């Protein structure tokens, strides 16, 4: 009933906030991927595109890698970057999220890069910031991690050229994974014909097939003839309890070993959003092997974040 206008787009249909990849038109995804490519292909270290702008990294949940790559990306675009670790400051003093957002808005930020442990928090923040402030979701709960999804698309495109003839498998803890959801939406939008999710029933969300994916519980069957394998990180707190008996048993069934990877196509690539649990979801020989594209993912991640920020800054 309340599905009003897409909260990410401005009146001209241009990207104003990046909150999720769900519902974004393919043209915008291609635009981001193409722009990122121009940043990857250049030797220029610094661009003046965000000169005089301030980017606030507002992290309500700890992160090193994502925050750092956003910081590098913003600095390469000549922005001023302020890192705020909210966990450790105002929230523990009882300040409400709304008050925090109002205060940060009053500091004349141009862009908020937000990470939060609750699904939907960036939507909430986007609804409450001043209209000229852009919000970029850097990961919210189990919901979305759009720049990660985009850098994964960039990586896949880099190695596979085209999405229209691909089989992609996403393996592991899909239930709690914002990366999996972002990948699924992006792959669907970009025309990938076959997406598979592989995991035990305890780690797959209800009705996941309604997202347009095929469900497998047997990893070898699920990996058969795929072109791309994405391994998801298994959080420590999921490794024991009622979802899984142990990390070892998970590894036995769903850890990516060379033996299981052999079911995929011989030129299949292996992605992981990091940080990896070696010996839990992925074997070291695969993580460091020739099919792994895990380190290029990180490099492309900076270009993707530069692309998103520069496109938004240009959409006035």
């Amino acid at each position, binding site marked *: 009933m*309340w599905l009003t206008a897409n909260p990410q787009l401005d009146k001209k249909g241009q990207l104003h906030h990046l909150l999720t990849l769900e519902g974004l038109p393919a043209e915008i995804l291609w635009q981001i991927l193409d722009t990122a490519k121009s940043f990857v292909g250049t030797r220029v270290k610094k661009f003046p595109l965000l000169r005089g702008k301030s980017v606030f990294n507002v992290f309500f949940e700890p992160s090193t890698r994502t925050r750092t790559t956003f910081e590098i990306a913003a600095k390469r675009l000549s922005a001023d970057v302020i890192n705020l670790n909210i966990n450790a400051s105002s929230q523990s003093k009882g300040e409400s999220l709304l008050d925090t957002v109002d205060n940060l808005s009053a500091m004349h930020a141009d862009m908020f890069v937000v990470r*939060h442990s609750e699904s939907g928090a960036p939507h909430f923040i986007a609804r409450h910031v001043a209209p000229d402030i852009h919000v970029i979701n850097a990961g919210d709960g189990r919901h979305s991690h759009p720049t990660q999804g985009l850098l994964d698309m960039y990586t896949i495109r880099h190695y596979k050229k085209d999405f229209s003839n691909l089989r992609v498998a996403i393996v592991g803890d899909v239930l709690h994974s914002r990366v999996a959801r972002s990948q699924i939406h992006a792959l669907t939008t970009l025309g990938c014909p076959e997406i598979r999710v592989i995991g035990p029933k305890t780690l797959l969300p*209800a009705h996941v097939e309604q997202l347009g994916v095929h469900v497998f519980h047997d990893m070898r069957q699920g990996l058969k003839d795929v072109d791309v394998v994405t391994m998801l990180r298994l959080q420590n707190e999921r490794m024991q309890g009622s979802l899984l008996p142990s990390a070892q048993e998970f590894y036995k069934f769903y850890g990516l070993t060379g033996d299981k990877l052999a079911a995929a196509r011989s030129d299949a690539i292996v992605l992981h959003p990091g940080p990896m649990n070696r010996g839990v979801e992925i074997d070291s020989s695969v993580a460091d092997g020739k099919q792994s594209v895990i380190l290029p993912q990180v490099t492309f991640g900076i270009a993707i974040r530069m692309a998103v920020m520069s496109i938004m800054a240009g959409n006035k």
Partner: protein
Amino acid sequence: MKIHIKGGRLIDPRSGVDAKKDVYIAAGKIVAIGDAPNGYTANRVIDAAGLVVCPGLVDLAARLREPGFEYLATLESEMEAAIAGGVTSLACPPDTDPPLDEPGLVEMLKFRAKNLNQARVYPIGALTQGLKGKRLTEMAELVDAGCVAFSQADAPFADTQVFYHALQYAATFGFPVWLRPQDPALAQHGVAHDGQVATRFGLPAIPVCAETVALSMILILARETGARVHLARLSSAEGVEMVRQAKRDKLPVTCDVAIHHAHLTEMDIGYFESNSRLDPPLRSQRDRDALRAALADGTVDALCSDHTPVDEDAKQLPFAEAEPGATGLELLLPLTLKWAEESKMTLALALARITSDPARVLGVDAGHLTTGHAADICIFDPERHWKIEPQALKSQGKNTPYIGLELKGKVRHTLVDGQVVYEF
């Protein structure tokens, strides 16, 4: 005070009357319907032409937030909301602070409500002390103080044995027990229906089995103990089907559905709209349709407002962190009319679900228009549109998924004991 309600369309679901008839009131009671009694001269005539005259509404779940949560709402504000919504009798759940587990608290609530001289308040007593699920309350004392039934609200029992004993004890004296079927462990941390929206949005989910597992236990124990059980706020197609079967098996159970669940689905979460964060969660369209069908065929006995005023600050949060609940007293009538219109129900049948049927569940003399009985009456304009805006609501709770929308059906007069307590 003698009041003559003139020229209205009188609908009394219990007697099946739906006709243009006048109502004559004297000394707080209805003295005649149709023709004036001999020598009757009214002090006041209410022109009800074009309006519907029906029994005052009976709401099975309205949180008044007293005692303990006066910052969320007060008895004054919520009783005003009740009469503005045409509600003349309401049951309030025991989840106050402290919970309604002692006669003194219940007497105080009854006393305060009575002094306001508005809607009648029927407290539901706590089934266990402090709602902790361990020790039974003094139920007979609580009944003497004014409780009409006993409930755990949304609090769990410590274990199944306490649950079993509570039902046995209540059954001994014929005290009704109201239970909300939700398995606490299965619903733990959940904030949305375990369906496509929770999957897409990555929201922690409450599966349907949280309702059906609890229901099956309740139904088994009700059968075993002979307790009279009312099932509060069903949310799923499977749950409704279990109740249908139980009723077929002649188990003396009744049940209700909250008004929002007869209209909305998980899709109404929109983009993480915290006004749609409700407990039980809004489920799928299939569930919503099953609830509507069960309301129509009488499997579901009553519609209730599930009125839950929530502080604005507690809603201005990301979806999962927001407090569940919505304001409802003033929306019960228009949303019931909307359901009737959309389901092509007669007005009389639809109104039964918010008047005579809930009165039967409560076991009180209310929800009907009968000569010689109290004149608790709602007079409303079925065609008048109004916009649901914070300033249009009397309740201190302004949070509802319907905020900003227009609904049809506006209460014009509410009478309790033959007194006009609300006029618009």
